[in-house]
């Protein structure tokens, strides 16, 4: 049996795939631990998960405050803030905790989320092999390729921090997607395992009675953290769009007035809800998109920032959804996009093809197989 240490930032979407892969490794009898922010990790990991601290509550609160400022930015300022004010400082801040976890746990392999830069640095210094957990597939296709000077700026930041481009391990890069969504030629070390959804703990309640009350199509509207006024605007337009339709919608968001066919909840057990859904409206977070496609659900995607435009383009190219402009789409646009993906069978058929590619990719089982091979050398 072997020992695996997952290094993760305090971001749900980045913890979730590791919860699944780690759960699979635990089920196989390996020793598994996580290092990050305990308060973020505990609700998402198996009950008996071993957790080491690298981020205390003060730093986590600071990160959330920074995030608020970051959400108000637009255009290239988002990228600059993300690297200079978030990723690099987080990397520095996590090094002591990750070093301590490595010393105490003694892993055979370190599995670092792509946004936990401390992982590769500490692993390398300890002479340990490390793998990348790429919670989005966007970095693989390098969205900055058309802006070489910006791309070079990112690489310089990484070189200053770590002496190299540690976004990608040369041993193993786990990508929770498949060739049905991500075009290109990649090295042997890049493993497209599809979304890792098994062994996931969802500790959020849901009023399941609400679902069985009436036979109508069900849509999930999940926009991640709302992005200031633009987020409020899109959500109110989306509520207006679904209000007039013969369907029901679950909206993830803070309580607000909504039409009678809409249920607004601050959080939902998204995976458990998926089998009941007919379509998903989302900002294009990689996890939500791939979870929906893993259930063969067509999508309406209104990307906001980061990897979301890339993910939205993947969905459109695969034929599995319609893309909207987040800051400008109106109720009529949202309604028409939603009616298209619900009523035109091509979208669900395309989503079904992506689903088949995900099933073939193997999910957490395939990821665990590949990680075991890293130990074997």
């Amino acid at each position, binding site marked *: 049996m072997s020992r695996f240490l997952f290094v993760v930032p305090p971001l749900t979407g980045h913890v979730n795939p590791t919860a699944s892969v780690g759960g699979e490794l635990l089920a196989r009898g390996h020793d598994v631990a996580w290092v990050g922010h305990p308060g973020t990790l505990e609700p998402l990991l198996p009950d008996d998960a071993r957790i080491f601290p690298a981020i205390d509550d003060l730093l986590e609160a600071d990160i959330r405050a920074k995030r608020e400022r970051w959400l108000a930015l*637009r*255009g*290239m*300022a988002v*990228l*600059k803030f993300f690297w200079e004010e978030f990723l690099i400082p987080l990397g520095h801040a996590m090094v002591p905790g990750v070093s301590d976890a490595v010393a105490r746990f003694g892993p055979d392999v370190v599995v670092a989320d792509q946004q936990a830069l401390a992982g590769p640095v500490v692993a390398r210094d300890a002479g340990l092999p490390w793998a990348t957990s790429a919670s989005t597939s966007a970095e693989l296709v390098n969205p900055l390729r*058309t*802006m*070489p*000077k*910006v791309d070079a*700026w990112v690489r310089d930041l990484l070189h200053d921090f770590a002496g190299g481009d540690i976004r990608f391990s040369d041993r193993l890069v786990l990508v929770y997607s498949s060739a049905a969504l991500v075009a290109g030629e990649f090295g042997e070390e890049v493993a497209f395992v599809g979304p890792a959804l098994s062994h996931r703990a969802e500790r959020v309640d849901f009023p399941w009675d609400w679902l069985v009350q009436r036979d109508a199509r069900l849509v999930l509207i999940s926009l991640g953290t709302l992005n200031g006024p*633009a987020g409020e605007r899109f959500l109110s337009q989306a509520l207006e769009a679904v209000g007039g339709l013969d369907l029901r919608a679950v909206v993830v968001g803070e309580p607000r007035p909504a039409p009678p066919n809409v249920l607004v909840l601050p959080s939902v057990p998204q995976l458990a809800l998926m089998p009941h859904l007919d379509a998903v409206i989302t900002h294009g977070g990689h996890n939500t998109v791939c979870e929906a496609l893993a259930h063969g659900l067509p999508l309406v995607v209104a*990307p906001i920032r980061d990897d979301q*435009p890339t993910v*939205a383009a993947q969905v459109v190219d695969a034929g599995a959804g319609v*893309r909207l*402009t*987040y*800051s*400008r789409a109106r109720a009529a646009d949202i309604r028409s996009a939603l009616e298209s993906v619900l009523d035109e069978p091509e979208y669900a058929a395309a989503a079904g093809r992506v689903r088949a590619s995900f099933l073939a990719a193997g999910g957490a089982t395939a990821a665990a197989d590949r990680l075991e091979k890293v130990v074997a050398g």
Partner: protein
Amino acid sequence: MDEVLQQVAKLITEVVGPDFLLGVEITRDTTFSDDLGLESIEFVALADKLNAHYGVDLVAFLADMDIDEIMAMSVGRLVDHITARV
């Protein structure tokens, strides 16, 4: 008003939709990032229109800029680039 500026403002309005520019006058100082909040797909649409109208390659123009220049990129700078090319 400069003819190129007028045309570029028209193309931007077509991409963004007139409803979203109410009260925003597009001048030389208007920035793409902060003032217009142009989304990536709108940028691609604008690049297509500029290429069709002037034969100007917006992607190549940006490829030469560093991150601070792209953040500060204004309508005036694009207009000067087009004027120098056509």
